């Protein structure tokens, strides 16, 4: 059995001041459902991370089913930190592959902008093990990737300018994406000199706080896009337990499994959306997914290989860094950009229309990774 993508939708990412979590979720869901009206939805999977803690709203799946008149169908919310959206997609796919459902709606959503940064940082920390000495040391998410970056610089010829070039690439891509959070151009100098968040990571190296939602309708009925692989892996929940600090094994393993399932290799992938929660994360991910040799991702950045129409275009949407990162929506938004690329009308559409696209969604400091490969039929 094969699972196909029938429709994708996405709200504008950024500060959706007048929209509630529910509004965002229903807007994206309705748009995806309207595009797939001939399908009867059998189940809903919602990707969301902190609806309960930050927006005081749970039962998201039941709200979708009720307000959109889907009937008494089963629904569930999936949580896997920043990989919540990717995990929701995967559960939708597995639900269809099991034979239980013919068609499902997957929606990812987060509402974050209304809360102060310190509060959001505190809640995001719940995606690290909160019973350990790392929490008490005051380690944060950007802190983890700051520690990784300093070691990466120590072991390679890379420096802060390589992370800045990567961040600039994603910002330039976002300028062409009308739904992206950041549409103001930035310069390399501005990125290099921006306010420090967790040394050596500055403001532009860190994904922003974002409101937004994205939705996808999947079905076993054929369409123009099929899902040729869905894979997921787990990794360490603590920095001090990493066997190799410069490796995110969950990304590597989920990538390897996805390539195996699809019967393809990294060299076959035409366009990629990677989980660049931090510039450093994209650097490690392009190595772990086999696009470039280990500890040589920075050379690929230097040579512009991951730019639009480069050898391996990464984050043509602007990525989390500049499209924005409404946590539970991110994994689903990756599908949105890739489906548009495969259909030939994406922001930053590649000159040669792609056939194979890969999405990689990360949760925690490498605790979860989900990889999907999509193919234009």
């Amino acid at each position: 059995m094969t699972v196909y993508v029938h429709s994708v939708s996405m709200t504008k990412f950024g500060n959706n001041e007048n929209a509630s979590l529910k509004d965002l979720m229903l807007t994206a869901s309705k748009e995806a459902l309207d595009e797939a009206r001939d399908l009867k939805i059998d189940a809903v999977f919602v990707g969301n991370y902190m609806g309960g803690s930050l927006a005081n709203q749970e039962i998201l799946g039941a709200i979708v089913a009720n307000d959109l008149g889907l009937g008494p169908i089963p629904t569930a919310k999936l949580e896997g930190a920043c990989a919540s959206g990717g995990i929701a997609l995967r559960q939708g796919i597995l639900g269809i592959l099991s034979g239980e459902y013919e068609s499902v709606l997957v929606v990812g959503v987060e509402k974050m902008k209304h809360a102060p940064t310190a509060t959001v940082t505190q809640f995001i920390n719940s995606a690290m093990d909160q019973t350990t000495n790392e929490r008490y040391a005051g380690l944060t998410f950007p802190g983890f990737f700051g520690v990784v970056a300093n070691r990466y610089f120590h072991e390679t010829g890379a420096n802060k300018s390589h992370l800045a070039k990567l961040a600039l690439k994603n910002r330039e891509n976002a300028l062409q994406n009308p739904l992206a959070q950041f549409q103001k151009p930035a310069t390399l100098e501005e990125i290099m000199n921006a306010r420090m968040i967790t040394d050596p990571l500055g403001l532009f190296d860190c994904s922003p706080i974002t409101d937004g939602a994205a939705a996808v309708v999947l079905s076993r009925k054929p369409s123009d896009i099929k899902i040729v692989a869905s894979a997921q892996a787990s990794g360490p929940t603590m920095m001090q337990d990493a066997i190799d600090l410069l490796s995110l094994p969950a990304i590597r393993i989920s990538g390897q499994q996805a390539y195996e399932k699809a019967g393809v290799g990294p060299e076959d992938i035409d366009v990629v959306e990677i989980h660049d929660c931090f510039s450093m994360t994209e650097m490690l991910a392009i190595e772990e997914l086999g696009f470039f040799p280990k500890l040589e991702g920075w050379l690929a950045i230097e040579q512009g290989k991951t730019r639009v129409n480069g050898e391996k275009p990464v984050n043509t949407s602007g990525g989390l860094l500049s499209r924005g990162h409404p946590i539970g929506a991110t994994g689903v938004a990756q599908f949105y950009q890739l489906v548009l690329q495969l259909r030939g009308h994406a922001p930053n559409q590649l000159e040669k229309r792609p056939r194979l696209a890969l999405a990689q969604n990360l949760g925690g400091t490498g605790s979860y990774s989900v990889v999907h490969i999509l193919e234009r039929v």
Partner: protein
Amino acid sequence: MKIYECCGVESVTKKVYCSTCRQEIKNEREVPDEGTVYSFTVIHIAPAEYAHLAPYTVALVQLKDSTAKLTVRIQESVQIGDPVQLDEMKDGTYIYQKVRTA
């Protein structure tokens, strides 16, 4: 400092089962509270509960005589390779400092 070991993997974190042999992790031994800075960051933007301490350094310390690493807070600036030692254990936090040479 106590570290736990099974199948060649050493960790300061006490886990239940070993992911290699699936047996209960039983080996433990004491190692010195000192080591070298493996890497670090300076946290300028902290979570609400640590905002009053910012900026502060969080370092990953390679413990002496072990392959295990330990996440600590340090109140001074450090570089990779700096020798460090335990200053005090406070509220569940390993607070480290640079080793002073006489």
